């Protein structure tokens, strides 16, 4: 097993646990963390799988850089909205009753 593949496999584990977290966790802050876990998992797979033969590939590396920035943007928005939600309701969990 190469190091690249190991990264990819770790990425799979991270992604899976991240998804489970986003689905299961109610607390918004922790859910945002779970989302980041998920994103990191995908990035690891992207970089690791492409470099499974141990030669650096700049293309997925650049893609991951782009992906990270996008994830940062999403995280910032999520935090801002969580904060607003907290300010409005005092809660950090979404409840069922604000559904229509």
């Amino acid at each position, binding site marked *: 097993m190469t190091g690249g593949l190991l990264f990819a496999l770790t990425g799979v584990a991270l992604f899976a646990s991240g998804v489970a977290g986003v689905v299961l966790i109610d607390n918004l802050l922790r859910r945002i963390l779970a989302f980041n876990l998920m994103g990191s998992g995908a990035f690891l797979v992207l970089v690791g*799988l492409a470099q499974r033969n141990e*030669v650096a590939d*700049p293309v997925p*590396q*650049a893609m991951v850089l*782009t992906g990270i920035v996008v994830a940062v*943007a999403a995280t910032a928005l999520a935090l*801002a909205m969580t904060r607003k939600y907290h300010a409005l309701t005092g809660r950090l969990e979404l409840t069922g009753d604000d559904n229509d």
Partner: protein
Amino acid sequence: MKRLAVTALATGFAVVLVEAMLNLGPAAIDLRIPVRENLAESGVSHAVTAVLLNYRGYDTLLEVAVLLLALVAVLTVTDEADVAFPHMEHPVLQTLARLATPLMTVVAVYLLWAGAFRPGGAFQAGSVLAAAAVLLHLVGLLPGWRSPRLPLRLGLVAGLLTFLAVATAMLARGALLEYPPSMAGGLILLIESVLTVSLALILAGLFLLLSRDEGPS
């Protein structure tokens, strides 16, 4: 019940995926070769920067848009009132922060310049600058942001607008973002420099706009 089901599904998914990964042959296409072959024309000598700002510069253009969008989005969900100004009067920390800031600026400039031939570039440089701003804010030397005024707004959008302007200017002779090899280096440096400033402002803004408590802290 739901917890169990989701966990089981996620685990199952991971197992299937791992199994499939372990049985994978070589890829049909190897982009490393064209990346290397065209490096001379890309204007930079570092492969990742070449991909980021030249081969796949369009991704980066959109990514800057995503960041700016995130800033605007954060603006829409923050209220105008209540700007935080952490009342931290810790002289040691403040002095350290004052010392660190110029140092970080230098690092940022180095990163920007280094990006052409080794890991580095506008994003890294911008992040370091933004970190400096956050540091200053946390020790109470820089207030949180209100709705940004015109000069600040100009700084925020300058990066995207410059990038966009250069990208579309290339349409005159070919495709979007098709730098002439002779000018590629200069154009990329121009974009990166402006981007550094804008990205620093945006990243700092994402923090400084959110850093506002209800009432004085």
